């Protein structure tokens, strides 16, 4: 995966206070994106167009929950509890991108497929940018996740090619693209501590570089399907940023929904994402 031996990376005990703050910011963004994306995707369960696509999307959602678990687990080792990471965390402290919190229109499968594509390409670029991270425990986990993300991207690409095969389908995907594109750009909003994250080597690429890579990947592919990709610098941007904790109204609703059971049941110890604590 990378040439750096783990002995030359930073371990948990070596972190300075400043480094830890930057690392936590990076990990929360990774984890929150995966968790919220998965949370939205599960809404398709029993509603996807066919049984097979239902199983596929549910499976992808489960993978993403699994990835979220890997990243939240690294935060737990830095001293956070699961309720602090998820169930009791203030919704304004979540730093996922706006793309993953957007609600789906009723039966808007084109949105689900396109969103998956836009997200999965960004996810691969981001994982590659942390593959040679200076933080040893993070480096250990990236490889496996990258393998699973391949299936997700293949799934999205195959669907997009087929949905855009006729005018009706292509129109639906174009609508989804016009709707989602401004929110997708928030994947690359720098957010607090961006300079530190790069300077300490937790991520080896700045987000501006990742944004360029993303545009250079998604634009030619979408255009090859006869879709019109909005001009990134000309689209009307939402006021919210995502990475800084500001979110669209859809997020508040989603947050209330997935924390409702936790609050109703008043668990002394909530169900954990991991079966056993390490």
């Amino acid at each position, binding site marked *: 995966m990378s040439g750096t031996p783990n002995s030359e990376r930073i371990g948990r005990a070596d972190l300075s206070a400043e480094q830890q703050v930057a690392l936590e910011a990076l990990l929360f963004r990774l984890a929150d994106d995966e968790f919220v994306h998965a949370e939205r995707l599960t809404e398709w369960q029993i509603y996807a167009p066919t049984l*097979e696509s239902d199983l596929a999307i549910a499976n992808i959602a489960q993978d993403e929950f699994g990835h979220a678990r890997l990243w939240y687990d690294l935060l737990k080792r830095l001293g956070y509890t699961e309720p602090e990471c998820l169930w009791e965390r203030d919704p304004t402290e979540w730093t996922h991108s706006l793309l993953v919190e957007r609600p789906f229109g009723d039966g808007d499968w084109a949105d689900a497929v396109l969103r998956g594509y836009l997200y999965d390409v960004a996810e691969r670029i981001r994982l590659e940018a942390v593959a040679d991270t200076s933080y040893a425990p993070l480096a250990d986990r990236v490889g496996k996740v990258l393998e699973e993300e391949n*299936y997700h991207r293949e799934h999205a690409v*195959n669907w997009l090619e087929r949905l855009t095969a006729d005018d009706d389908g292509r129109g639906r995907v174009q609508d989804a693209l016009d709707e989602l594109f401004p929110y997708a750009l928030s994947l690359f909003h720098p957010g607090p501590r961006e300079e530190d994250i790069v300077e300490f080597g937790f991520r080896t690429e700045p987000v501006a570089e990742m944004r360029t890579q993303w545009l250079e990947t998604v634009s030619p592919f979408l255009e090859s399907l006869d879709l019109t990709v909005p001009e990134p610098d000309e689209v009307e941007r939402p006021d919210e940023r995502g990475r800084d904790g500001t979110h669209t109204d859809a997020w508040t609703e989603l947050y209330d929904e997935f924390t409702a059971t936790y609050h109703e049941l008043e668990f002394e110890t909530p169900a954990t994402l991991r079966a056993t604590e390490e």
Partner: protein
Amino acid sequence: MIWEVFRQEAPGDYHEHVGNVHAPDREMAKLFARIQHARRMQTNSLWVTPREEIGEVSAEDAAFDGRTDKSYRWAMTYNEIDASFAEEVADSESEQREAARKRREALRDEGNEA
């Protein structure tokens, strides 16, 4: 469109029929088959094939050689030998014995009905 799915567990094994998936084309069929028939199982390879490409032989047609006694075809000369030195010989004999028994039963049932 229905695609039949065959899974091979380890290299050298036969591909065994494990079920089917609905998919519009081969690529999607493979994609769905991976989720439904490979993900949780030990899998070395998966085949997908359109159901209409499968040729079927019915029970009646398959029984074409089942009407007469075939025991004269058995490798009788080996019967005086303890076949345990070659597992496949013993297996083949017991298979043939079993097949002969089923044929006899089938013929007897037909006779009872008549």
